[in-house]
């Protein structure tokens, strides 16, 4: 794939995104006009123009905190992915593990983050570790399920064919089950990466030295809704960027789907 292909794909993407862009702009315009006409105080509802202006002035602090959040998100998600992959392979080879472990993971998904986040911070401090753990807690199970279901979706004929060629369990996994799981893996990835950002911000909100979560908490306590909203926009942009990266990774790793 060369540069021309990428730019053509980008142009196509932009064209498809145009209606969404228009509606976002309309919402912002409506908001601006409402604040202007109603005379509502800026400490209750700041206009988007003010959010942008104050956000720009605080850009150095915002960038620093966004970087901390990004670090927490990516480290947590990397740990989560690595664990989910290793465990998915183990489960594929030893089905008993699935029955032993899945109920535990399902329960882990029922824990309310609001209650867990302060506890994890209490146990592990204000550093990176509690964020990694919380991001992993939120994203690990969806990724594991995506992979395990993906292996199961392997075409039975392909498995029989490989067996007839003399392939053992390992070769069947490597040549058929793993590639079959790719679409499932990427579906899980796109969803989980967005949860990961939210989880990291939540962890920071519960206690952190740096990060968008703690920035939002401080701005709220100082009655600065404009800065709260600026941080919200930054976190949205961050999430969208990671989502786009996941889509790009899928596009790059499945060349047969774009031919």
């Amino acid at each position, binding site marked *: 794939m060369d540069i021309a292909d990428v730019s053509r794909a980008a142009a196509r993407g932009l064209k498809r995104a145009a209606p969404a862009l228009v509606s976002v702009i309309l919402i912002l315009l409506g908001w601006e006009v409402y604040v202007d006409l109603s005379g509502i105080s800026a400490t209750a509802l700041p206009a988007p123009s003010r959010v942008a202006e104050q956000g720009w002035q605080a850009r150095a602090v915002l960038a620093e905190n966004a970087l901390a959040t990004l670090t927490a998100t990516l480290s947590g998600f990397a740990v989560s992915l690595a664990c989910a992959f290793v465990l998915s392979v183990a489960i594929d080879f030893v089905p008993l593990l699935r029955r032993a472990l899945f109920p535990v993971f399902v329960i882990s998904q029922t824990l309310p983050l609001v209650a867990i986040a302060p506890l994890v911070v209490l146990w592990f401090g204000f550093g990176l570790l509690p964020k990694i753990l919380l991001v992993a807690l939120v994203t690990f199970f969806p990724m594991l399920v995506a992979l395990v279901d993906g292996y199961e979706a392997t075409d039975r*004929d392909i498995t029989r*064919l490989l067996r*007839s*060629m003399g392939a053992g369990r390992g*070769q069947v996994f490597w040549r058929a089950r793993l590639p079959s799981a790719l679409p499932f893996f990427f579906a899980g990835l796109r969803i989980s990466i967005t949860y990961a950002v939210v989880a990291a911000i939540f962890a920071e909100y519960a206690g952190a030295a740096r990060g968008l979560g703690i920035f939002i908490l401080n701005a709220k306590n100082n009655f600065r809704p404009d800065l709260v909203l600026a941080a919200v926009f930054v976190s949205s942009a961050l999430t969208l960027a990671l989502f786009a990266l996941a889509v790009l990774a899928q596009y790059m790793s499945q060349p*047969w789907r774009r*031919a």
Partner: protein
Amino acid sequence: MTLRLDDLRLTRGVTHVLDGVSLEARAAEFISILGPSGAGKSTLFELLLGSLEPDGGQISFNGQPVQGRDLFAFMPQRDALMPWRRVIDNIALGLEVQGLPRRAARERVRPLLPRFGLDGFERHWPHQLSGGMRQRAALARTLVQDRPLLLLDEPFGALDALTRTRMQRWLEARLQETRVTTLLVTHDVREAVALSDRIYLLSPRPARVVEVFDVPQPRPRMETGPGEEALALETRILRTLLEGERE
């Protein structure tokens, strides 16, 4: 070189699938196993490939019980091409499984592509091929494994009539060249008569061999279309099949 299936019996759960099936394939013979849908034809292949064990009877090759599975090259009903492998890598799959590095496997397969009408398509993905081309790729994948016996499980069942006839002609020509022993499972009477040296007709489940037909007509047969003797044989087989169903 002889493959013998002796009085194979199989029950799966409560279903009595095979009720003593015996057949024989000698070197370079083309054998068809013909029977109504659901008779257990494909099950015979699963026994040969070792994914099922028979309850009774035995499978032997040159008088020895069949060990290991390196005797058979198998082509499943649907082409089972891997969507994530290029055409050439799909064809070379068996060689890679045997331990050949990908590059060497490709080199071995490349010279065969023209004969399979896939010249210039080696870098394509399976979904870019027509139904007939996919089937030819699947057949190429089966043949390059260089095993003594081919197992074809209704290889042309999913194709339209015209493509099917074209593929049968083409298969006949390929087999004339390679003279590899072939077992074909089919429910298409015309296909069986056109391609086989011998046809084993199976009853509805539980399957047993109802009748064995020799097909002595000279080859190639597909070029000219069925002659009078072949048509008479087709009629006889069809009648036996339909009577079997009425029982």
